[in-house]
């Protein structure tokens, strides 16, 4: 695991300064005259002990594995020599169930797959399905979807930051992050009525327009969030313990990261500036002004910096989206996919038949297939649809970014200490609902 040496300026929370303003050092050992002497490590005897490698299970029921992940570790002393991940404890067959559902009926399943990014998944699914149907979306819908995706990116990164702090031993940022996440959930609740399982979008539009005053509330949130982010930044970025636990741990080079198929912050921390929003844009992301943060070392510390910066960039995108949110309808005017208004469905025969056919039979896409990648907080999430012209997809495939990112964990942990396994695992940002599906 070759990493370049680098210097991170570290601050201690309680610095004692001497009369010249320089930080005071606390001597560990002093000689008779009271002068500090260099500490000499005691001789190590353990190397001569010869033992068998030890097999241990981390998980599947372990709080630091972020769900039901089981890592079978082979240890030589405290060093991991082999790591065999076992997944599938949460396998529900989402893709199989999707083959028996109409397109709009699959959207609730996308909530439950990567449940920290549920509204982002809804939007991604709708984008893919719309391309398959050949329908467009309205301008207002486009901007609302950008707002939804960036809000959900903020939620996901905040949860990642909070839980990773817990794993590494810092408790306070966890509370700050979860407080802010609560604010986003309150916003989502006002919009679609649900907090976690939003099911916010439909093929051709959204489930509902945003309520009155919602945009101002988001604007207020966007204004207050940077304070929390800056606070967390001050707390962690130069924290000696945080740097010690994360810098140089679990590093992957750019070539390794590309070969392993990593995506999202994991790939960018290794120095590859691939972001689906920039390279294969959707929702007109090319018209928003934002930067893609890239790391240099590919270690946990860089992944932390990348994710922190991504929250700030999401705030920038949100500000621009709120400023340009146009008025107008949310749903596209296309009777192939959009239901007639309820008032018409109960008063006009044609609308009632139309409503009945769309609900009972479902909209039918033409024969074809679509792979729709979006930049989810975890990485490149792709929905792959294959249609044979009926109302239910022949194949609905989720390209799970966390699944592919997790597959690189043996590469990252082998040779590291057991305690680093927890930190490395946290840095991948896994959601087992998405990995097992």
């Amino acid at each position, binding site marked *: 695991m*070759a990493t*370049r040496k680098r210097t991170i300026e570290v601050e201690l929370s309680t610095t004692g300064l001497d009369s010249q303003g320089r930080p005071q050092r606390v001597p560990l050992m002093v000689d008779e005259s009271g002068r500090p002497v260099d500490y000499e490590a005691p001789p190590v005897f353990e190397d001569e002990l010869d033992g*068998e490698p030890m*097999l241990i299970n981390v998980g599947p029921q372990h709080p630091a594995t972020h769900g039901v992940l089981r890592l*079978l570790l082979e240890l030589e002393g405290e060093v991991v020599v*082999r790591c*065999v991940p*076992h*997944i*599938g404890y949460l*396998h529900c067959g989402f*893709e*199989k*169930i999707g083959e028996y559902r109409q397109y709009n009926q699959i959207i609730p399943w996308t909530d439950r797959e990567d449940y920290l990014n549920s509204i982002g998944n809804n939007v991604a699914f709708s984008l893919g399905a719309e*391309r398959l149907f*050949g329908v467009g979306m309205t301008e207002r819908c486009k901007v609302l979807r950008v707002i939804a995706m960036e809000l959900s990116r903020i939620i996901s990164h905040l949860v990642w930051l909070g839980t990773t702090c817990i794993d590494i031993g810092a408790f306070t940022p966890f509370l700050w992050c979860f407080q802010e996440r609560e604010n986003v959930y309150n916003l989502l609740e006002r919009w679609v009525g649900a907090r976690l399982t939003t099911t916010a979008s439909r093929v051709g539009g959204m489930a509902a327009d945003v309520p009155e005053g919602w945009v101002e509330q988001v604007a207020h949130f966007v204004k207050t969030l940077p304070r929390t982010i800056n606070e967390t930044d001050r707390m962690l970025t130069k924290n000696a313990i945080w740097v010690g636990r994360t810098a140089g741990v679990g590093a992957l*080079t*750019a070539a*390794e990261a*590309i*070969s*392993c*198929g*990593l995506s999202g912050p994991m790939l960018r921390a*290794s*120095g*590859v*500036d*691939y972001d689906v929003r*920039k*390279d*294969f*844009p959707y*929702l*007109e*992301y*090319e018209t928003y002004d934002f930067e893609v943060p*890239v790391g*240099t*070392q*590919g270690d946990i510390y860089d992944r932390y910096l990348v994710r922190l910066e991504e929250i700030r960039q999401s705030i920038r995108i949100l500000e621009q989206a709120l400023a340009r949110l146009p008025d107008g309808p949310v749903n596209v005017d296309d009777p192939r996919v959009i239901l007639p208004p309820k008032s018409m469905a109960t008063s006009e025969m044609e609308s009632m038949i139309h409503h009945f056919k769309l609900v009972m039979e479902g909209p039918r896409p*033409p024969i074809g*297939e*679509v*792979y729709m*990648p979006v930049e989810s907080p975890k990485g490149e999430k*792709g929905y*792959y649809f294959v249609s*044979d012209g*009926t109302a239910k997809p*022949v*194949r609905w*495939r989720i*390209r799970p970014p966390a*699944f*592919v990112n*997790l*597959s*690189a964990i043996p*590469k990252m942990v082998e040779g590291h200490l057991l305690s680093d396994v927890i930190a490395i695992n946290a840095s991948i940002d896994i959601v087992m609902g998405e990995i097992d599906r």
Partner: protein
Amino acid sequence: MSIGRMVVGSALPADAPAPATPRDIPHTGGPENPSAAAVRERFPDAVQRVEVIWGETTVYIDPPRVREVLEWLNGDESQRYDYLSDVTCVEYRDFGRPLQVVWHLRSFPYRRFLRVKVELAKDAELQVESVTDLWEGANWLEREAYDMFGVTFRGHPDPRRILMWETYNEGFPLRKDFPLRGRFSRSEQLRQALTAHPGASYLLEELSPASIYRDLPADMRERYIAQSSED
């Protein structure tokens, strides 16, 4: 191997248009990915057909030749498909149609996306060559494709099931002949699971190579057998 900033799209000319959200994509037809023509030129007898649907180019390859084509796409300077997005399979409801294995490839330097497909007749053995040595990320994706569809990837270093457990013997869940609710009733599934692991135990002290033998990759199994025969 150095760690440095790798800029995506470096192989494109400086005046290449910036990527933009595609609009008004036609159902069929439209511009074809230039790699498709390159593959056709390089492997004229291996390409079965090329389709462009909703703006995405699909190249159908003769199954025995697919590994060769993928290797060329990955390694050739004019293509550089260095990123494997996805490996998966598609089975149609029409039972007579062949099962398809799909590779979604991405070229970072040329900013291209290509879908490569092979069609495997269902009455023959479902086998293709593994690409784990070209893209390490293919490892788990191929294991999942095997687990869900029963397609064997020849040369895979660790061909175990991944989402289902090792002793699962009801077949391949995403195949169309597999019923949505599974092959057996819930009570029968539970009974089978218990009989498969008669001594199933979750105590950590009992985690020995013998009790987790099935969960180990092949090379670890061999190593532990060799160790136990030495003792």
